[in-house]
């Protein structure tokens, strides 16, 4: 699958890193990419199920493009949200829907995370895609 250029570069960067702690640190750093979703606006509807920590996402359209807002209490989850933000924000909804969650596996992130966390990522990805679908 082909990815947006920025995401493809990131995938290559992650692939080059063998040390798991370093890879985790890189995920943590991706938290900077998150468009914040204030905790006051977190509801049951925005909650990502299956995450061990508290994680919330909200998708809206801005000038016809996807804008993902997200927030979590754990840095790792924030980082995963940041990567997803990088992958879809600014895309047309139909284009964002083409994204496959496989990029997380290609980056070695899923391998570096516990199964519950991996499921949490998948649940987050699926929820974001479901939210985008309402705009198509």
């Amino acid at each position, binding site marked *: 699958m082909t990815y947006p250029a920025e995401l493809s570069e990131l995938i290559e960067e992650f692939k080059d890193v063998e*040390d*798991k*702690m370093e*890879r*985790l*640190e890189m995920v*943590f750093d991706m938290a900077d990419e998150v468009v914040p979703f204030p905790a006051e606006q977190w509801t049951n509807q925005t909650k990502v199920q299956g995450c*061990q*920590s508290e994680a919330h996402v909200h998708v809206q359209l801005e000038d016809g493009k996807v804008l993902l807002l997200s927030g979590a*209490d*754990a*840095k*790792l*989850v924030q980082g995963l949200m940041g990567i997803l933000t990088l992958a879809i924000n600014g895309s047309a909804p139909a284009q964002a829907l083409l994204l496959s969650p496989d990029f997380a596996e290609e980056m070695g992130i899923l391998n*570096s*995370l*516990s199964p519950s*966390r991996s499921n949490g990522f998948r649940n987050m990805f699926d929820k974001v895609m479901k939210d985008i679908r309402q705009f198509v």
Partner: protein
Amino acid sequence: MAIRDDFPILKREVNGFPLIYLDNAATTQKPQVVIDAMNEYYTSSNANVHRAVHTLAGEATEGYESCRNILKSWFNADRAVLTSGTTEAINLVAHAWGRANLTDGDVIVLTEMEHHSDIVPWQMLAEERNVELRYVPVMEDFTLDMDAYAASLEDAKLVCVVHTSNVLGVRNPLEEIIELAHSNDALVLVDAAQGVPHERIDFKESGADFMAFSAHKMCGPTGIGALLIDADVFETMQPFMGGGDMIETVTITGSTYQTNEHKFEAGTPRIAEAIGWCAAFDWMATLDLKKEHKRLIGIARWVAEQLREMDIPVYGRHEAKDSAVVSFLHPSIHSEDLAHLFDSRGFAVRTGHHCAQPLLTRLGISGTVRASFYLYNTMDEAKQFIEQLKDITERFG
């Protein structure tokens, strides 16, 4: 020969680093003799138990029933039902004793320290039978409020108490709890899942009416546990799962049931697991458990002191009879992030609510990181754990 040499898994690496396994309160590792016993059963003796007359069935039955015999002698108990684990054992009491003996307005006393498996079955029964549940609070020193406990016993038919908290490592004053309950004509169920790995318990001497625990927390296999039952109380219980093995006769108009423990063991039981558990008991019998426990609580106390010196809150007190569990909350690194970072260096620790949400609510937190030590852990591993925590704090805190 060092204890850890008996555990093949401890030789493996995780993420390129030697495994340091500190999640023993969740499950313990298995010595080679347990693995061999289960392997040998499937290789040489696999058959179903009790009914068939052939040689393999005889060997399987002997292996399975020898587990019951070991349980009875290890714990000094007259009745030992083999279950899938602590959870099923407690559910068995709720169904087999609770339904036969509890009615409208009866009271069950629980504590805020209980594992979910000693709360949810009672909530389900309470809803069905209109039974009142009362919870004994946990105080700031992480112990039960014994005055509140004494006051809660009016009309109580059953007291359910955890032997040792899986979060705090605190060992409850069971002797006092059981005596008070009995003087109020209430029976006592002890959830000893975290107790039996650390303490050699005499069931009859303890006075408990029910005691539930799992094999996998004491170097035995997963999927098997036991419920010890007082002989007189045993007679007041009705079977709740129907099927093979638990019957005496079946006709199209009705059935009669076995009168021994088999009446609570419907269906093909966990034969390989029972045989593996026997091997675990035999292996543990070669150790001086009191000496080992003293060593482990010493390690836990040292770790707790180190954490406090780093201004990290520790939830527990680590007295002589407590288990070697250290729960803490890092002030600047989220528990889950911390667990992943530890994992990246080969350390296995636990995070989350540890299936004890009411306790964490009482403590005003949503989760902890928990390092729990067992027979094969060493002081050197504890030192590496603290060193790693310091490194992680410096880099990510």
